[in-house]
């Protein structure tokens, strides 16, 4: 009886609500009761792995993520090639899901087992990027560096901590639930031991919309509201993807520059600031997400009319980040931010904040221009960027023979 029930739980795809109902009705006096968990039913299907571009950029944001900066310790180019091929093979398998090989009871199992015997896809995406440090003299790749790939600079309000900077590679893992992300993380690191090491890692989550609209960050404000419409291929080719004719190496076409900034939020301090100041700092109403003076979070502020900043202050974060002028339009970026939550500091304050995560065609023209407009903004008092880096998300894997980094390694 007990064994049957356990098997049922595994096969039901961990649908917690369903499992709870089944248990409640079993009439088994000593049954363990699993409390239902909402919005976490592990039934999300697969996101296609192959394509012109990697998944995890235009893909809808699932609630769980991990960002791993890795250093390549492989000694030569052929080992680096093997590394790219291995990451590709694991990503291909993990994003599709399936039953891992049974190696029998005498061997260490082929899979960690944390997702059960039949690994669900759960909307997992694996997005791999490279940083400028990969193009040093180790692998003789210097001539193939995407020409706009630089090292992240310190902006005036940053307090960068070397423990949270750098890395040759960036692995962005996103999925429907944390266990799926961690399963992928363990699988990929296991299969690449001796070739790369995790340098730093930050996990992220996205809250459900409360009550509706968009998810909120730790400051209580809806975040990531105003993204350019990159579902329009024409706009995507202007803002998101590296395209032909910009002086980039041919292999880089279809990739995208990836910026990650780890931003601590001083939430205790923020909570001690008046709602008026909070809203003036961001430029939106906290409750509705609407721009100040408007009614819905989808409303577009008219800064030409509000040119003195009576509604949205001229220094509001939203207004500085995206002034909505013809001149600043080409600097727009695609944001995919995740909240992070990392315990407490030595002084007992909560260590939480934002994994600012964005993709673009040109680091200087887009992220750096935007960030430069934000220097010394009022919000800077309540946040501190402390880590992250610049990466180049590789072009997609085109077919079953292709692998991530093939263009780079075989150019």
């Amino acid at each position, binding site marked *: 009886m007990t064994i049957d029930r356990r098997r049922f739980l595994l096969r039901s795809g961990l649908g917690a609500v369903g499992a709870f109902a089944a248990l409640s009705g079993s009439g088994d006096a000593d049954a363990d009761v699993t409390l239902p968990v909402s919005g976490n039913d592990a039934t999300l299907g697969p996101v296609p792995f192959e394509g012109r571009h990697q998944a995890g950029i235009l893909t809808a944001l699932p609630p769980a993520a991990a960002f791993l900066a890795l250093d390549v310790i492989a000694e030569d180019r052929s080992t680096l090639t093997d590394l790219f091929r291995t990451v590709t093979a694991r990503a291909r398998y993990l994003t599709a899901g399936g039953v891992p090989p049974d190696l029998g009871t005498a061997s260490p199992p082929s899979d960690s087992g944390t997702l059960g015997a039949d690994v669900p896809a759960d909307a997992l995406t694996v997005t791999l990027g490279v940083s400028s440090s990969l193009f040093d003299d180790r692998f003789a790749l210097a001539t193939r560096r995407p020409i706009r790939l630089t090292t992240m*600079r310190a902006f005036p309000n940053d307090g960068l901590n070397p423990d949270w900077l750098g890395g040759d590679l960036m692995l962005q893992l996103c999925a429907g639930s944390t266990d799926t992300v961690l399963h992928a993380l363990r699988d990929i690191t296991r299969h690449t031991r001796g070739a790369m090491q995790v340098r730093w890692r930050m996990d992220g989550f996205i809250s459900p919309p409360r009550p509706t609209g968009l998810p909120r960050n730790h400051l209580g404000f809806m975040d990531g509201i105003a993204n350019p419409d990159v579902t329009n291929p024409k706009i995507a080719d202007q803002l998101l993807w590296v395209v032909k004719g910009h002086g980039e190496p041919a292999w880089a076409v279809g990739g995208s520059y990836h910026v990650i900034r780890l931003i601590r939020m001083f939430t205790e301090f923020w909570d001690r*600031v*008046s709602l008026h100041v909070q809203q003036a700092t961001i430029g939106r109403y906290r409750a509705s997400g609407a721009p100040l003076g408007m009614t819905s979070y989808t409303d577009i502020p008219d800064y030409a009319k509000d040119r003195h900043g009576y509604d949205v202050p001229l220094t509001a974060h939203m207004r500085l980040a995206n002034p909505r002028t013809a001149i600043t339009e080409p600097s727009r970026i695609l944001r995919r931010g995740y909240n992070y939550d990392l315990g407490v*500091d*030595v*002084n*007992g304050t909560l260590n939480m904040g934002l994994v600012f995560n964005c993709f673009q065609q040109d680091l200087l023209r887009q992220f750096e221009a935007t960030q430069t407009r934000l220097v010394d903004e009022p919000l800077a008092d309540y946040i501190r960027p402390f880590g992250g880096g610049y990466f180049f998300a590789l072009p997609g894997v085109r077919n079953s023979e292709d692998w991530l980094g093939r263009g780079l390694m075989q150019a």
Partner: protein
Amino acid sequence: MAPEIASYRGYVTQKLGLEASEVQLLATAIAAGQVGAARAAWLTAHLTWHRIGGAYDAFGDLGLAIDGTALRLQDGILSPQFTGFHKVELDLWQNGDLAAAATDTATLLSDVDELAGKFPHESISAAELPLRTHDILEDALRDELSGDDDYGSGTDMAAVEADVDGTRELLSLLAPVLNPGAPHLEATATNELNKLDAALAATRTNGQWVAVTQVPLAQREQVDGDIGAALETLDLVPELVQVKGLTT
């Protein structure tokens, strides 16, 4: 708010004069090659800066030059922009470099003199004082009680004590404005600041200040909890003062 602003200006102007003389004493001790005396003079002068309420970007770029840390500089402690008290602290405690300390103290003195000359003529917005009443300790919690701005002296707890002094000064200055709307706020905040002072004093060992990370957990928790409680009270000040058109 005009009388309060005038009192504040008088308080800071007087303290900046004291600051300049104390930095001069620091320079003298360094010139005499007396490391022990120099360290003591450094602490005296640095605590005066905190009593001024120089925290939280109160004095713009000059304030950063006088008491900024290397945290926000691209080249960290190697940056030429890393100047002021914490640079001298690094020279005196970690590097044992009296020559560098002499040069850096000369820069510090010139920056303090410049500020002392400019400050009496700076405009002070009415919104500033009530915000600073909790900003000083917000700064203390973030930068000092985290140990982030300790460059070797291990005197962050003393700096927080001086921050409490600066906060008390602002609180008493604003009391006439606060009392009609919130008759108990000043007394509540004063009690909480007294408690915080007691917790800070308790961290001294044999009369010596101890670096934040070396303070036993139970004592640190008391300090962190007491500063948090005081801040939860002080954060009501800006609203009570009701400065119209207040923006950040």
